[in-house]
């Protein structure tokens, strides 16, 4: 399935590459809304709440882009996509940007003719096991039955890991996270493997989370990031620098609370001034208003605020910053300078 989708997407998207390369920015402005591809539902990353309002880590990025481009964080049409429909939706032009915890890989960036515009979450594949299993390392999992979501990169990583360590396993293919939880709790598989963020979210929903542990091994690099169509570099720049603006805002201490003040009058820090448009012409260089970054940050806060609100340690999901801390705090977030 996955392969055929890839091949189909490849063929058709290469046919359309020329036609769809026309300015997405103009389309979005003419339409008045941003079509943002999101997940159909993933705890913390994107789901409609009880009032039908989309909330989540990836969703906040969509709102930031809409605020930067159109000045209104609510001018977003959220288009839910599944793991199987997301790439065709982007390639066919149904959505302008895909923010759906998608792993940046070589073939997706090149073969499928997409451009990943950065990494908004550094993830990695881990293993969840019951404490009763008495396993302390993923290398002890010889002969284990493993619940694994089909059609994702996790499936391939799993095969690589077990082959590299010369141990055997028996996959239990499942379709959704919900199904995986049922199977795992019913004992149909010894361990459940998916991205560590997903495991943390899953473990938090258990009746007795303390009876389960996430093993220390992270067996893959899963840089998750938003992506756009290949070929429209102006639009790619906007998407990329909106993400960078959110990251830089955290580094410079600009929050949704103080952004209005800081943008009102030029301050002492020239980079803040350039970012918020009180100095220089950065907005005009990417075809936006000079207050584009201010709007993006005001939409739902800087990167750190978005993280803490949706998936941080005070939420039921409770993910520590870890790799996703600023580079000044030992993490990997390192936005290029606004200059």
């Amino acid at each position, binding site marked *: 399935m996955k392969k055929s989708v890839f091949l189909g997407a490849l063929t058709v998207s290469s046919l359309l590459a020329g036609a769809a390369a026309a300015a997405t920015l103009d389309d979005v402005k003419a339409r008045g809304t941003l079509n943002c591809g999101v997940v159909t539902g993933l705890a913390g990353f994107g789901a409609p709440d009880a009032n039908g309002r989309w909330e989540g880590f990836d969703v906040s990025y969509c709102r930031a882009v809409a605020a930067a481009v159109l000045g209104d964080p609510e001018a977003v049409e959220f*288009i839910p996509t599944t793991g199987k429909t997301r790439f065709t939706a982007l390639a066919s032009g149904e959505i302008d940007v895909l923010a759906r915890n998608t792993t940046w890989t070589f073939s997706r960036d090149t073969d499928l003719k997409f451009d990943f515009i950065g990494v908004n979450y550094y993830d990695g594949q881990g293993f969840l096991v019951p404490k009763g299993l008495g396993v302390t390392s993923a290398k002890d999992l010889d002969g284990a039955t493993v619940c694994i979501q089909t059609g994702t990169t996790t499936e391939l990583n799993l095969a690589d890991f077990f082959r590299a360590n010369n141990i055997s396993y028996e996959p239990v293919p499942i379709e959704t996270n*919900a199904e995986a939880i049922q199977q795992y709790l019913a004992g149909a598989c010894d361990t459940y493997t998916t991205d560590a963020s997903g495991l943390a979210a899953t473990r938090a929903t258990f009746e007795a989370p303390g009876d389960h542990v996430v093993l220390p091994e992270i067996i893959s690099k899963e840089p998750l990031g938003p992506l756009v169509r290949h070929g429209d570099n102006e639009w790619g720049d906007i998407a990329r620098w909106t993400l960078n603006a959110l990251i830089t805002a955290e580094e410079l201490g600009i929050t949704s609370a103080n952004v209005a003040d800081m943008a009102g009058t030029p301050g002492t820090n020239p980079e803040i001034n350039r970012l918020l448009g009180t100095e220089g012409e950065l907005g005009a260089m990417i075809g936006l208003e000079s207050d584009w970054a201010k709007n993006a940050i005001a939409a739902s806060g800087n990167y750190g605020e978005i993280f803490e609100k949706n998936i941080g340690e005070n939420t*039921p999901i409770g993910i520590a910053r870890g790799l996703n801390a600023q580079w000044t705090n030992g993490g990997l977030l390192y936005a290029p300078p606004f200059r």
Partner: protein
Amino acid sequence: MSDMHSHSVGFVRDSVIPPAPPPALESGIVKWMRTNLFAGWSNTLLTLVALYALYLVLSVLVPWITNGVWNASNIRECREIMQGSGGGCFAVIADRWQQLIFGFQYPEESYWRPSLAFILLFIAVAPLLFSKIFPRNLLILTAVYPFLAFYLIWGGSILIPIMAMVGFGAGYLVYSKLVTNSFAAGFFGGVAAAVVVWYLGGFITGAMPGFLALEPVASRDMGGFMLNMILGVICVSLSLPFGILLALGRQSDLPVVKGICVVFIEFVRGVPLITLLFVANVVLAYFLPPGTSFDLILRVIIMITLFASAYIAEVIRGGLAALPKGQYEAANSLGLDYTQSMRLIILPQALKISIPGIVNVAVGLFKDTTLVSVISMFDIVGLIRGPILASTDWNGVYWELFGFAALLFFIVCYGISQYSQWLERQLATDHR
């Protein structure tokens, strides 16, 4: 001999014994249990096993329902209240029932519109389903209903459904004028009249977009069980006429018509519905020029209708084949032409035979509408699997949600099946 007799017989009963109640073991509940539950050791054993199985199920199910929690704001609170009593966390249904029924994007102040459309559905189909009870001219309600329902659910100016209806009306008028000459003239004349009216009506609706307008709701905002009902009702009612045409076409003597029908039916029946849905969602987007938004619900309706009509065609073909050849010959000998003989003699009988099969397809189709969750539409299953289970409040509640969905589907499907059995009894004219 006579005195001998008086000596040998000591007592002669000269009155009837008063009737006594049957022995306790042979009457009432005891007898019923002895014959039905405990007749012989093997039956006794099976009864005991069945009772034990029943006990196992009920011992979980009853506390699940009676200890269920209806008032909580998230699953953690639910668990706190229950303290392991084995109850269900029904609070999720209390919290999210509007989403489960209407989807999460349908404007809340407009919930009365689809609800009203749902109630009117019963009024509209009643003359159709119970034609002996309701007078025939109530069928006009049935004819108006699709346009009214469209207006209620999708909103927008009332002129659009009215123009559509006027177009159909004009087409029918022209058809009924011309059909006495020939069916083909009537058919094409009717289509042409409808197209002309629609084209002219386009100017009127374009000029007055706000006339008696309800707040328009985009197709993408439909969801929940309402979406399943919309898809189910529209696709079943559209696939029936298409199915009849396909079944007749497959029996046709015209090689081109027959060929097209056979290829279509065999192709569609040979392809899983889910691939057709993927085509509707994913592949069609490539063939349309960028920027055109060919409504996703419309695409899905077309695909499901194609799928269902192929199946219904085969069911009806079975009914046609079951009719004795004498019926066809009788119709011919009366001097009826093809359309008359089909309409008056063949189809009424063939359709009656096909009722169980058609209902089977309809029920299956209605349940298949949940497949749209795979192409990221938020029908009731898509809503459960996506937004609700992804919210940190309710992640981990499965039985209650899927049980609720199953209950809704059961009510509808059981209703359909009961109606079809009643209809069969009504139409039973066979030799018993």
